[in-house]
């Protein structure tokens, strides 16, 4: 199906391990985003990208790395996972400035 998909849906990992969360969209949207959602904090922006090879930090970028070699993919990597990175991660995309965001279904990540 067309749209925005995230994988995996659930992930359990251990502290210190590297983990990559995948995000793929089929609309050729220019803008893509990564958010984390934690109780009491709402949705916080980790990184965003305005186009292929253009990325920028959001509110909480420490401990995360992103890349965007192709317009449709925007993977998020935790280079050395910590317990504080246990969260639900949402990827989103939009086609233009001040247009609505489309969210993926989310990845629930647990770091033990």
């Amino acid at each position: 199906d067309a749209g925005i998909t995230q994988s995996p849906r659930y992930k359990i990992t251990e502290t210190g391990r590297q983990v990559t969360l995948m995000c793929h969209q089929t609309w050729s949207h220019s803008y893509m985003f990564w958010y984390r959602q934690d109780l009491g904090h709402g949705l916080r922006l980790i990184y965003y990208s305005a186009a292929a090879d253009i990325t920028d930090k959001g509110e909480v970028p420490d401990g995360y790395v992103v890349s965007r070699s192709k317009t449709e993919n925007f993977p998020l990597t935790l280079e050395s996972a910590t317990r504080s990175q246990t969260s639900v991660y949402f990827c989103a995309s939009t086609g233009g400035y001040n247009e609505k965001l489309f969210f993926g279904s989310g990845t629930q990540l647990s770091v033990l």
Partner: protein
Amino acid sequence: QQPVQSPQAVILREGEDAVINCSSSKALYSVHWYRQKHGEAPVFLMILLKGGEQKGHEKISASFNEKKQQSSLYLTASQLSYSGTYFCGTEGKTGANNLFFGTGTRLTVIP
């Protein structure tokens, strides 16, 4: 830089009205509103742009006062389906087309 939402939670009976407020410490050019049901992704409701316009979506409408750096979401004659967490989003970095969201307002509609 996150916008501030109030109240944090509200419980309504079907048919009652509610107002959710969103305010920012920085100048606003637009405000987005999203609703998230438990275990699901946020879903877009509406965008309000600079100019103070009020928009509507069924019985859900919103206003935007850029001078006061505030937006309000109005839910009238609430239905059970309105239950969820409502988020407002404002531009985090001017011109960057990113969104910083508030911490959310949990709305529960009971029969």
